[in-house]
């Protein structure tokens, strides 16, 4: 599990999540991910196209990051979720807190809405 960060300008960072975000791997990224989100003070666009698997501990990390962003007035939006990941998000009824769209362009439009 790894993530890369891409600066999308003054208001947002893109986090490219790659691998499996689960009980075994969440510890690898939890601290740097949350710290990067918190330090930026920006909204976050999560590129999920490379994320193959998401479990409840991964969801907890995403919710924690969303809470940090929200407290600073920002938004979090996901795009490109693979079927398994999309199913998990839907099953947990998280669409309002972690809105998921198809493409990066849609994600950026969501941030500006």
């Amino acid at each position, binding site marked *: 599990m790894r993530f890369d960060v891409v600066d999308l300008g003054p208001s947002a960072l893109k986090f490219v999540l790659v691998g499996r975000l*689960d*009980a*075994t791997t969440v510890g690898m990224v939890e601290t740097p991910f949350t710290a990067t989100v918190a330090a930026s003070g920006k909204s976050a666009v999560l590129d999920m196209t490379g994320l193959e*698997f998401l*479990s*409840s*501990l991964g*969801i*907890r990390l995403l*919710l*924690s990051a*969303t*809470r940090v962003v*929200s407290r600073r007035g920002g938004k979090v939006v996901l795009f490109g979720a693979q*079927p*398994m990941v999309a*199913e*998990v998000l839907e*099953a*947990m*009824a*998280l*669409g*309002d*807190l972690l809105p998921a769209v198809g493409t990066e362009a849609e994600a950026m439009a969501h941030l500006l809405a």
Partner: protein
Amino acid sequence: MLRVDVPIDLGALADAQDSIETYLETEGAPTTLALRVRLVVEELLVNLVMHGRFAAQPPPAARVAVAFEAGRARLTIEDAAAPFDPRGGKAPVALRDIEAAPTGGLGLPLVRRMAEILDYGRTEPGWNRTELLITGVS
């Protein structure tokens, strides 16, 4: 059928999940089903690691069995933790306030959405037995 003993330790989880996923793929199960089983196994075993109360230390390994039959996976988990019936609890409800979002307790609701819990009971003295059915389509 695949049977695997899984130590009550997060460090042992990935190998068990990989074995189960490989077994299902070898048996011809669709990826959707294999990943659902992987998820359900993770949530139940993580729950044991984080919340299970065991009389013996170190706790005995959980016994996990998976069978792929008629396009579905039948999963059985036996563990020596204190009695715990996973069938209880509420279904997830849509949350609109991030400050009210739970910081834990997400695993079992996810299991109940991804699997049908066929049975729960006590078998040997001190052991739970949970039987689940998982399909590859919603």
